Structure formats: C-alpha cells, structure tokens
C-alpha cells in the first residue's frame, strides 16, 4: 500500500520529467507529478495538468494513453504512486471527503449497482452524498426527465441498453450538484439525440460556473464542444491549453496525429483493395 506523498516532498521519481511547480490553487483541478505503475507497465509517467475553473476541458489521447488512469487518480478512485491532485485548492489524497464532495464522477468500465431500478440507483447516489429525501426526490425526477429515462425509471438497470446505462451513470454523477464534473467517455454508445441533450446540459452547467472534464476519442466532438484540451499519450501530457492555442491553424485531429504519430502510408493490404472476386 502506498501512502499519499506529502505535497512538500513531491520529488520527481525519474530524471527527465518536467520540473514541478506548486499546484495552482485557483484551478478546478491541479495535478502535479502523477505517476502510476501497474506491474511492469507504467501507465502514467509524471503528469502535470491544470484545469482552469469554469472551463470545458477535453482530455484526448490514443487507446492506452493513460486517460482513465489519470482521471481515476484525479478523482480519488486510484491512489497514485507519486504526485498530488488538488480539487479547487484542496489536496484530494490528504482530505478526500472535502474534495470528493465537490466532484461528480463518471468512471469508465466500472459496473453499477445494477439490480436497482434507475430511480433507485439515483436515489442511492443522492442519499450517499448526504442529501435529504425531498431534494433527492426532486432531482431524481428532473434528472430522469433530462436524460429521457422517465419511462424506464422502474426498470432494473441490468436490463438497460449500453447507452441508457451510460446516461443513468451520468445522472448519478450530477445529483449532488458538484462544482466539477469528471466524465470518462461520456458519449460512448449514447444516441445522437441524447448526446445533444447532454451537451446542452453540460454547456449550461459550465455557463453557470461549473467545470467539466471529459475524455474522448472523438477529436471533432472535443474541438466543437470544449474550450480547453490536453493531448496525452504514453502517460505524458504532449500539449495542453485552449483548443485554439493547441490546434493552431490545423484541425485538432491533424494536430493530434502530428503529436502522437503512428499514421502509416497505406501500402499493404493491396489484396483488400481489389474488388475482384477471383480468390
């Protein structure tokens, strides 16, 4: 078991990683020198990142870049080997209760308590957050309506479709009106109409002073939706800033491919191109 390192002694565990500055207390989310190793694979190798308060922040990267690991460490789900995460100036790993109360989290790839109905699951999340019964009941109704799940409120979540499951998980991340929403792949499997509705909700939330962090594979979506973006690959931040600053003259997708690399000239698979039915 690792003990969360004291912010004072956050030394760099390997030479060559960028020099640490003190975390930014004005930022919604401020990560410094986060490291995580699973067995023999280093998933996150010294990530420094500031998510400005009131931003709509996109986190993009290829598969296995360390997005989920980073977000897990930034939200209290996974203890980092080294480094700190500050939520609105509060050290998450030193004062988890205080920090977690300000965070709404949609983790990727975890189960839900899926033997509960949709309404029960939302109620559960609300009550765990310490809300009172009346508030919970009101918000459950509104969230179900916003997610277009009112008809399925009494259906057991295990029988939901993938998109519905994503939406109910998203709703339970919002029920306590957090200051920051951290959403890992929130639009995966969600139908276009619901996705548009969710984007509206998130934009309104940001306009009202909230901060949203989303991870995504879809560059186009991030370019249109987000105000800020960070590109990470191989457990490092390659570039971060406002979307305009990061992409420059290019589209975000081109900039991403330039940074990450890995595009190859299509020479192979010649047999696939022939439409002949000879073989």
């Amino acid at each position: 078991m690792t003990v969360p390192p004291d912010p004072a002694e956050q030394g760099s565990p390997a030479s060559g990683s960028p020099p640490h500055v003190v975390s930014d207390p004005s930022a919604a989310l401020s990560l410094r020198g986060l490291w995580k190793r699973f067995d023999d694979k280093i998933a996150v190798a010294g990530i420094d990142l500031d998510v400005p308060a009131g931003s709509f922040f996109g986190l993009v990267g290829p598969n296995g870049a360390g997005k989920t690991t980073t977000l897990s460490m930034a939200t209290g789900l996974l203890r980092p080997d080294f480094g700190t995460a500050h939520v609105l100036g509060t050290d998450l790993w030193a004062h988890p209760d205080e920090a977690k109360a300000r965070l709404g989290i949609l983790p990727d790839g975890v189960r839900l308590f899926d033997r509960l109905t949709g309404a029960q699951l939302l109620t559960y999340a609300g009550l765990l957050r310490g809300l009172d019964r009346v508030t919970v009941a009101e918000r459950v109704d509104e969230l179900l309506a916003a997610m277009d799940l009112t008809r399925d409120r009494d259906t057991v979540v295990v029988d939901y479709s993938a998109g519905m499951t994503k939406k109910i998980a998203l709703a339970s991340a919002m029920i306590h009106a957090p200051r920051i929403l951290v959403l890992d792949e929130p639009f995966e499997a969600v139908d276009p109409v619901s996705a548009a509705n969710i984007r509206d909700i998130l934009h309104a939330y940001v306009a009202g002073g909230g901060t949203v962090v989303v991870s995504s594979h879809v560059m186009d979506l991030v370019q249109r939706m987000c105000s800020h973006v960070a590109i990470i690959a191989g457990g490092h931040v390659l570039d971060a800033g406002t979307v305009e600053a990061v992409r420059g003259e290019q589209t975000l997708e081109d900039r991403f491919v330039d940074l990450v690399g890995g595009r190859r000239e299509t020479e192979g698979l010649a047999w696939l191109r022939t439409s002949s039915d000879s073989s």
Partner: protein
Amino acid sequence: MVAHLVRLKLRLLANTLRRSAWQTIGLCVAVLYGLTVVGFLVAMAVVGGRSDPVLTGQVLTVAGAAVVLAWWVVPLFAFGVDATLDPLRFVTFAIPRRRLLAGLAAASAVSVPAAVTLLAALGTAFAWSSDPPALVAAAVGGLAVLALCILGSRAVTSVFAPLLESRRYREVLTVVAIVPLLLIGPAIGWWSGVAEKSVDETGVTVTMTGPGNAVAASVVAAADVVAWTPFGAPWAFAGAVHEGEWGLLAARVVVVAVTLGVLWRVWDRALARALVSPRRAAAGGRVRGLGWFSRLPATPTGAVAARCATYWVRDPRYATSLAMVPLLPIALAMVGVSSGVGAGLLLVVPPLAAFILGFGVSNDIGYDNTAFALHVATGVPGRADRWGRVLPVLVLGVPLVVALSVAAVVAADRWDALPALLGLSFGVLGAALGTSSVVSARMVYPVPRPGESALKTPQGAALATMVAQSAAFGVVLVLTLPTIVLALRGILGPSATTGGVAVVVGLLTAAVALVVGVRWGARVYERRQPELLAQVAAFR
C-alpha cells in the same frame, strides 16, 4: 475443421494457464483430484470384478447412468460451464454447419471432465478382466458413454439456450439448483435406510450386513431398469456379453445408437436456429416505486442498508444463501431420522442459520465488484458503509433465529434448552457479523460476478477463498467459544442455570463483537477504499 477446433481448444486451454500461476496450480490440483478419484474407482471396480463381475457390472451401470445424467443436466444449472467454444462465436465465419458440428463435438472431448469420464469408463472396463469378450464390450461401451455425455450436454444446452438467455430464468434456476445439491447427501442416507428395511422385511437370503450392502441390493434391482435407458445402456454392454445374451446386447446397442442419432439431430436443429437468430434482450425487470429506499431513513447508512436489503432478495448470489436457511432444517431432519439421532439434531439449525446469515456479508465488497466505485466516488463514511451492510442482516436475522429456535425446541421437545439455544444463536450471529465487517474491509476474494451463476466458482479463486474463509471462521469460533461451551453444557447437561448464563454471555459476545467489529472495520475501510476498488477491479 475438426483439427482446427481441437487445436483452438488446446490453445485456449494453454493460454488460460499462461495467465496466472494460481490457475496452473488450480488445474494441476483438479487433474490430480480427478486422477485420484478415477484410480480409486478403477481399483474398486477391478477388485469387485474379481469376486463378482455381474454385481459389479450392475453397480457400474447405475453409477455410470448417474454420470451420464449429470453430464446432461448440470450445464443447465451451472450455466456457462464451458462456453469457450460458444457456437455463436462462429456465426460470422460462414462454416458449413455439418463441419462446425463435427468440429465442436471433437473439441468438446478435449477437456478435463471429458478426459476423466473417458478414463473412468475405460478403466472400470477392467472389472471384466476375467472375460475378454466382455472386456472389449465394456471398452466399446466406454467410448459410447463419452459420445453420449458430450452430445447430450451439447444438445440439451442448445435446446434450452433461448430459455437460458433470459436473466430471470437463469437466476431462478441457480437458486432452485441448490435444493437437490443440499439434499443429495441426506437423501442417500435416507434411501439406504429405507432399502435396508425393505431387505429385512422381504427376507432376502443374500447375507448382507450394514447399510452399504443394502444399497447394493437396491442397485441390483435398479440396474435392470436403468440398462434400458440411454444413460445406462452403454454401461450394460459387457453384462449382456458376459451372459452370452446377444439379442440383449443388440437391443442395448440400438438404444445407444438411436439416442446418439436423435441427439445429433436435435443439436443440429437447435444450432441451425441459433445461428440465424441473434441474441435478444429479454423484457426488463420492473419494480414499482423506490422499495426500501423510501422506507429506511434518508441517510447514507439508511441508503446502504436499503441497497443491501434489495440485493439480498434480488441478487441470486445473496438469495441463494437466504434460500439455504429454510432448507437446513429439512436436510438435518432427514439426517436425524436416518441416523437415529432423532429430532434433537434440529437444535443445530438456529446457530447454523445465524452463521450463514452473518457470514454472508464477509465478502460484501467482492460481491459489489466494481460497482463499489460509487462508494469510493461519493466518499461514504466507513461507519455508514459497515452499519448499512450489517443492519439488514441483523433485522432479518434476529426474528428468524428466534423463530427457528422456538421451532427447533418444540420439534425436539426440549423447552428447557431454549435459553441456551438463543444465547448460542445470538452469539454466533453477532460474532459472525462483527468478524465479517472487519474481514470484508481487509480481504477481498473473487466470487461469481454480478449476473453470473451463484454456483460458479471463479477460476483460480479456490485457494484464496479458502484461506480467507477459514481465517474468518477461526475468528468467529474463538469469539463464540465461551458461549458454545456454556450453551453445550446447558443443553446436554441439561442445566437450566448454565443455560441462563449462556444467554447473557451470548448477548454480550454479540454486542461487543458487533460494535468493535464495525468500528474496526470502518477504520480499515476508510484507509483502504481505493485499494479495495483496485482489488475488485483486478477480478475481471
């Protein structure tokens, strides 16, 4: 195609072994265990065959028929037993159905259970070593047995596949399946008791002493019938040859051949249907309103309690242990009657039920699986989490234990034993719950995942589970030792005063174990939340 699929099966087997050392050890243990059982059976058969090949053949017929039947039926209950080569995975490959079928059949023979069955069938053929033609017939029968087992299990599972795809049906089935499992031991004891009596009454002249021979006597009668069923016929080839009854042999061969043909057709048809009809989602389960969530206090503790109460009923993994409780008295009553101990054995039921309930939450976070992330994300206080998990069991357990104790005392006609029994049961309930609260925050071990059969043991988990459970069991035993000693003296003494003391000590044990256990568990839990989540996430 046959060679392809067999090679695929071997490759899959090898890859599972590469994944973890524990699985390799698990497989070695399984193989060793299987070989020991087979060796023992073969030795028994050979020894039996020397003294009386006919009787041995008949015993083999009945026992063998049970094996074939098990091959057909068990996959229905423990669904997902061997889905490594699920036919539906080949849908996109445009393989002619005939060839796919042959390939799947051959690949199914490449598995530990199949190997063990074949070895046992061929090995026990040596019971006929004194009669070479019969020996050959038995060996041929052994091959037919394997074919019957594999085709039968495949045909039955693919016929019932549409049903098995329904979550509701699967869940009911796994809960129902524990009934025969729990009653099988007592039932055998009871049956041998009955058989012994009937042998006594009819005055069979065979010299038989003890219940074991009585079983043999009833087996002889059963063998004649079973030999005509598809399950027993291949085992009875040798018997017919030994007697020189060629007509009988031909008839049995026909039974086997027809059965194999029918099974092949059934499997073929079912597969043809399955390959063109994609899996469909069953109608969703619906529950009106908020259930326990609107009845329990609107606090984190109340919410956790409401969630757990809902799960005890709705999740088959919990419901199975709940369903054990009413079955215990039945099983123990059967043992009590057949062994002659009588209804006094029922006094064991209340503390046993208390233990099952209290121990049921000892791996609660393992059962949550990664859904536990919600607790970590919301930062549920340790006390709320621990009490929330304990309270539903307590609220259900206390009246249940009282009711069971009163019922047991009435049945055994031992009203004097009631105080001691209550003290013991409460002590066990409290100690088990308190221990569970600490253990479930400290050790998590793999269990069937949400939605899997409650009877399925995750691969490679057996050893870890055993260590964790026996450690927890030892703690509960030590905690309740004073109560146990006092209660036993109160009941067996019998001594009313000791029984009275047992109540006080039992309640005290329960209260202290609960409070200390929950507090300690809460502290451990708060310290280890992310680590617990990482552990359950690794189960996938």
